[in-house]
């Protein structure tokens, strides 16, 4: 079967779950080869990638690759596409990986599709557009298809691959060294999963009422091992940091379970969460549009319902 390159997402040497999803997906359409770019590669990482089906692992772990914004990784992938002639390149639909995909597309004169929520035979991509209102099938018509796939699009399945490591040397060009990362600032994040990657997201909206009250949302999230999200009303009011905003001008999430508490469900919010598999809504207003999406809804005061739910979940553990 034909080779599909999968760009590995990793943080502090750990392979992120979305990469395992991409490997699982690539196995259905071809033979996955993982591409490791940047520092942190280890035997553990190799084992993980092999466990989920990577036949080959191309490793370019020179520090230089991470010292500049996006461009060196695009150069690495362009080099691999030219050497290996893969059938496709898959990346995660994260902000940075999409940018890598975009620059790669120009370098190899190939089409790029972003935010696929599924892939079918013939490298046909499923996309959900206009805030989830329209489903689209699209495909690349020129060059080597490059597809950015949303996290949580595929349930992960282990299936051992050879995981044969192949070292790749990249000479980062001067052109790719234009934007240098001089400092990485880590802001407190705690132990919660990353918003776009999380299987479960608990979001709070205007109904939460204040920054202090967000503790109620956080407690529910922690009882489920979930990420915390917020509506725009909340981030505009300064109750919760902007990077947690779910919606049209914030993050798009596609988790297995999305719990919306005190969120009315305006189109701007729905655009960021409508492809969630299961949706639960808790809102005082029975007319709130969020109930149209909800698999299960409670009309009531989130300040009563959410703490009771947290307690009940904790009890059942």
């Amino acid at each position, binding site marked *: 079967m034909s080779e599909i390159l999968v760009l590995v997402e990793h943080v502090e040497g750990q392979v992120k779950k979305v990469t395992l999803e991409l490997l699982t997906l690539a196995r259905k359409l071809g033979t996955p080869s993982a591409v490791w770019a940047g520092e942190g590669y280890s035997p553990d990482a190799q084992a993980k990638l092999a466990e989920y089906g990577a036949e080959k692992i191309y490793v370019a772990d020179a520090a230089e690759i991470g010292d500049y*914004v996006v461009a060196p990784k695009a150069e690495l992938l362009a080099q691999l596409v030219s050497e290996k002639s893969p059938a496709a390149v898959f990346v995660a639909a994260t902000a*940075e990986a999409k940018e890598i995909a975009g*620059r790669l597309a*120009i370098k190899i004169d190939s089409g790029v599709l972003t935010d696929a929520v599924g892939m079918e035979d013939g490298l046909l991509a499923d996309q959900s557009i206009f805030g989830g209102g329209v489903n689209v099938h699209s495909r690349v018509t020129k060059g080597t298809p490059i597809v950015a796939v949303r996290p949580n699009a595929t349930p992960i399945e282990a299936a051992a691959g050879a995981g044969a490591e192949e070292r790749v040397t990249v000479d980062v060009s001067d052109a790719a060294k234009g934007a240098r990362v001089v400092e*990485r600032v880590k802001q407190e994040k705690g132990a919660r999963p990353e918003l776009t990657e999380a299987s479960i997201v608990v979001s709070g909206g205007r109904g939460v009422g204040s920054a202090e009250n967000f503790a109620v949302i956080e407690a529910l999230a922690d009882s489920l091992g979930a990420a915390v999200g917020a509506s725009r009303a909340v981030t505009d009011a300064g109750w919760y940091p902007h990077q947690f905003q779910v919606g049209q001008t914030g993050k798009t999430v596609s988790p297995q*379970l999305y719990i919306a508490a005190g969120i009315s469900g305006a189109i701007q919010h729905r655009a960021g969460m409508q492809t969630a598999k299961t949706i639960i809504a808790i809102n005082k207003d029975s007319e709130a549009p969020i109930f149209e999406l909800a698999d299960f*809804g409670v009309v009531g005061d989130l300040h009563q319902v959410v703490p009771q739910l947290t307690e009940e979940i904790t009890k059942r553990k």
Partner: protein
Amino acid sequence: MNIVVCVKQVPDTATERKLRSDDNTLDRDAADGVINELCEYAVEEALRLKEAHGGEVTVLTMGPAKAADTIRKALAMGADKAVHLVDDALHGSDVLGTSYALAQTLKKIGFDLVVLGSESTDARTGVLAAMLAERLSVPQLTFANKVEIDGTSISIQRVTDYGYDRVEASLPAVVSVVEKINEPRYPSFKGIMAAKKKPVEKLGVADAEIDASQVGLANSWSEVVDFAAAPPRAAGTVVKDEGDGGVKTAEFLASKKFV
């Protein structure tokens, strides 16, 4: 400093957005066209940089004739002049074609700094700024929530999942901005009146030295094969909280094996 701010007219999110059944492209007539929200932050940032460092702000848009409304909005906010890339040959260009057409135009009109919003609300690819940097061979400073310029040096805070990266480069460069970088100003009455007299240069494909075989629907690198309205989600169960709403929700979660 010669700042070019790229803006896009998009269908209003509050109206029903559609694809055209004849060629699967965005139906720009079906919905009201408005300035893409993140572009307002880009215009604001461009104006602030001009106010701090001097120079002028040129608005650049690619789009059909009706996109002129979006140009006027940016001019009313305070931009000095505009270039409208408008040509039927551009219809249906995908992001590769669009980035090529805009890059050619930027080369033609010249720039020290290009500013964009990080994403549009219609296509939402979030890749255009990176692609412009690639095509123009200039530094990519994207997803900025802070921009500082000192002479020909530029630094930004690039928003990341864990916080931000501080990134440095030299001008010329491409910057994209995120929401919350600033508070876009409302056009004043005076600004709206002044905008009517500001120069708007219309360029066609040939004027901008764009190779017509690289743009338009037929020359795109990707295609929409088919589309359909998303099936409505099956109606769920909605209960009224009678003091047991949390327990009932937990029962639902248990039935779905989430707990």
